[in-house]
């Protein structure tokens, strides 16, 4: 039970691709935060987070995503949450975050 992340910059789309595998919770959210901050320091542009293999996210993890989104919004950029599992979609719907992030798949 932990979190693995892969990140990649796609120049032709000017977009970060981030794959998150495992669980984002109070224990792992800080690593996600650091990873995203590093990416945005390098290039403040859209992030596509592939959640196909994300099993769990808690309010701490959602808070990290909201923090990153706020920073991106200043440059009119966004976060795309791709292929969330049903449990994660449910959380995004309950919290209204499905209207704030772009949800794909």
């Amino acid at each position, binding site marked *: 039970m932990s979190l693995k992340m892969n990140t990649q910059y796609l120049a032709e789309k000017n977009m970060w691709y981030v794959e998150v595998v495992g669980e984002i919770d109070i*224990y792992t959210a800080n690593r996600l935060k650091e990873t995203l901050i590093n990416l945005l320091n390098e290039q403040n542009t859209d992030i596509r987070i592939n959640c196909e293999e994300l099993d769990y996210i808690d309010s701490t993890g959602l808070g990290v995503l909201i923090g990153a989104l706020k920073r991106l919004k200043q440059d009119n950029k966004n976060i795309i949450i791709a292929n969330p599992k049903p449990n994660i979609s449910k959380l995004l719907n309950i919290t209204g975050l499905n209207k704030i992030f772009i949800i794909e798949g």
Partner: protein
Amino acid sequence: MGDSLSISIPSKPEYVSVVRLTTSAIASRMGFNVEEIEDIKVAVAEACTNAIIHSNCKQDDNFNIHFGMDEKKIVIQVQDQGNGFYCEAVEEPDLTSPKEGGLGIFIIKSLMDEVVLESDIGKGTTIKMTKYLGDDI
């Protein structure tokens, strides 16, 4: 009279996943369906996360999770002996303008059938949450 099970864990982030697994095992044994098991797991984890982040307990102070089970429901109490807070002051999050924090209690209330927060400044906080088996009430 139902069964009761309790766990005492250190106030450290790395133990929340242990509680999640235990909670899932209990809920699954009781016959909750997959979605309900997930709801209960998420709610308990959010309450533990609050105890760890906000109660201001020392990391080697443990806090408690108590599960009460009968044929109809599970009642879970997450209890810390920390700072406490004014729970009346907790506001619902403004879903149109999200903030980094303030989602935990809202998520718990959304996922469980009944939620009662009790907090005494200087003494600690107990959040009690109930989920019923079978049809939603």
